[in-house]
């Protein structure tokens, strides 16, 4: 008798473990907050401020998704992940989405069973060296000691690049950006390599940023974007279209400042559909009609998020470059809201 109950309980537990993969939206709603994986700290992209509140460009995406689901951008639980722990955290269900400078690659999408929901930053891998070394090109780095975050695509690009150019190097594997920074500043490595945006963000926190240069070579394509688990397309759609809403909002001139006026109604049907005053786009996603309004209000549209966190007026000082709207010669091109 007892044994039967135990067996029954085990069977139920097994079934529920199996079913947990589906319907992330319901889980998130039941929990009352979104679990979002971010870096362990990269200024401008995801780092806690003086009060311990996470902020940054990637954090902005998480907050927009939380706002779209709950109407509250603060309903997010942030989980700091390293390059090595991020995928396990996502596939085990510990986090609902990952927004951590993660490069969209074929194997990650197909073999690791993830679903990339778009690109929020078009990046490429670069090298940073102290000015005093007098190095002007990555091809001069023969024999250099290179600090590198382990478990990343940059690790593979680095090996490929040096191999292709037939120059040698000594890799120093590092777990987090903070450790890499410490090693680099202690001169334990000559070069620090990661995504160019990460280099800029790291350099911005140095005491004398001017003493370090980012070399001109960009050795890879690094489309960074938020990702979710395979197998729950509804949840993937929510993340994808929240990101698209931020991008299209910039394109249509919808900002956090003028959104309250625009919600009253405009002559532009696409703005009306985006803001939920026309059509039923929100309910199609399983959300409220004003989901996009909340998402845009959370931190502003894509352009506002960019300027506030990593733009030219911040210490990080990244220009829009590839990340400008397609109308401005960039790559940002959100599908139509229709």
């Amino acid at each position, binding site marked *: 008798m007892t044994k039967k109950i135990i067996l029954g309980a085990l069977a139920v537990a097994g079934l529920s473990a199996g079913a947990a993969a589906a319907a992330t939206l319901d889980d998130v709603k039941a929990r009352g907050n979104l679990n979002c994986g971010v870096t362990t700290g990269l200024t401008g992209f995801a780092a806690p401020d003086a009060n311990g509140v996470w902020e940054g460009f990637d954090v902005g995406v998480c907050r927009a998704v939380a706002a779209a689901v709950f109407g509250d951008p603060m309903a997010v639980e942030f989980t700091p992940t390293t390059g090595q722990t991020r995928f396990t955290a996502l596939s085990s269900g510990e986090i609902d989405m990952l927004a951590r400078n993660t490069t969209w690659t074929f194997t990650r999408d197909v073999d690791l069973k993830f679903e990339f929901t778009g690109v929020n930053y078009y990046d490429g891998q670069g090298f940073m060296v102290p000015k005093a070394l007098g190095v002007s090109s990555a091809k001069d780095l023969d024999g*250099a000691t290179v600090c590198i975050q382990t*478990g990343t695509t940059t690790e593979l690009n680095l090996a490929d690049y040096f191999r292709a150019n037939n120059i040698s190097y000594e890799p120093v594997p590092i777990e987090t950006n903070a450790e890499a920074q410490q090693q680099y500043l202690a001169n334990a490595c000559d070069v620090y390599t990661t995504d160019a945006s990460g280099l800029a963000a790291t350099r911005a926190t140095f005491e004398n940023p001017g003493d370090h240069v980012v070399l001109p070579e960009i050795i890879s394509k690094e489309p960074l974007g938020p990702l979710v688990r395979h197998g729950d397309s509804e949840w993937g759609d929510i993340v994808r279209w929240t990101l698209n809403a931020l991008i299209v909002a910039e394109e249509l001139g919808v900002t956090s400042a003028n959104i309250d006026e625009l919600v009253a109604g405009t002559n532009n049907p696409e703005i009306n559909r985006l803001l939920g005053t026309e059509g039923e786009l929100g309910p199609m996603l399983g959300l409220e009609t004003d989901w996009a309004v909340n998402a845009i209000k959370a931190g502003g549209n894509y352009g506002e998020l960019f300027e506030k966190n990593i733009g030219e007026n911040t210490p990080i000082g990244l220009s829009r470059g590839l990340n400008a709207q397609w109308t401005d010669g960039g790559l940002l091109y959100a599908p139509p809201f229709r």
Partner: protein
Amino acid sequence: MTTMSDPPRESFRLSQLIYDTRYRSLTIQVVATILLAVMIFWLINNTVQNLAALGKDFDFGFLGQRAGYDINQRLLEYSSASTHGKAALIGILNTLLVAFLGCILATVLGVIAGVLRLSSNWVVARLMAVYVEGFRNVPLLLWIIAIFAVMTESTPSPRDFREGGSASMMLGDTLAVTNRGVYVPMPVWGPGSWVVVVVFLLSLVGIFAYRRLARKRQEATGQILPVFRVSLALFFLPAILAYFVMGGPVSLNYPELGGFNFDGGLHLRNSLIALWLALSLYTGAFIAEIVRGGILSVSKGQTEASFALGLRPNRTMNLVVLPQAMRVIVPPLISQYLNLTKNSSLAIAVGYMDARSTLGGITINQTGRELEGMLLLGAFYLVLSLAISGVMNIYNASIKLKER
């Protein structure tokens, strides 16, 4: 005729399984076994179901794929074009290297500290107490990182060795201590150098044979041959002689500053040194306590009897106390070796590329084969631990009290 009544027939009732002491223990064992089997079945079943739900299969084929990443410390030929299996092998060798070096240094440190802690010299005994308590009461990870940080922050970078720099090489320009590691001269094995190596190995065999001879002679005649001086001579002279006879086939390759780093020589990376020192100091503190306990376990009467026979303190320790203490020391020593080996998996903290960092880190991350990678890693540590304890058990059997 006497009437024989049948003995009452024992009828078996189910309740006997619990209330009858003859069956009770059997019942408990059977139930426990079934529960355990159910548990294991559930774990496996759950894994299979969840893997299926995630759409993942269970496949070790990734070991044959191109790894694509570089490893700085490699004992075998390896490049980013090698396979994940090769990368795992490089990592395994690095684990073995640091575990081997660590076990030796930890034993040396531990024995010295353990004996000195019993010293009658107050200052020495207290110093050793500080060492033991300081190291075994602070987590190992902190020691690894602390030693690594000190070595990185307090030593000059290779740039400082240039003309007009603040640092210079030591021991007549043969040794360079930098914040990337220590560069020492490396022997280069030229043609004919195998003769020197063979001669050296033969002289080792010679030393062993001579010691046996000396012991036999002493047991038979009581005559004591000078063992130490002859061993020392045997150790050095034949090899040096062979070296000159062959015309100096073994040369040294000195480290030289070139480009960003030192070229040539043997590069002992900071990660290896920090991990090695931290593991040895930490485990050495435990071994010191084991040695101390072992020595204290030999009754004082043994020492007094030895002194009464006229043996000097040195010989008393070597011939009377230590052989008896070893019987107490060796079994817990095995556990310490196993601990050290497994603790070496903390290597990733300082970027040392051991099995955990290659197979259990980068490979898993690049291929997404967490389950397979972790199972392989677990199996590796299991086999390694069993091998170490197997060897040590043989040693233990050779020194334990032989009852005849």
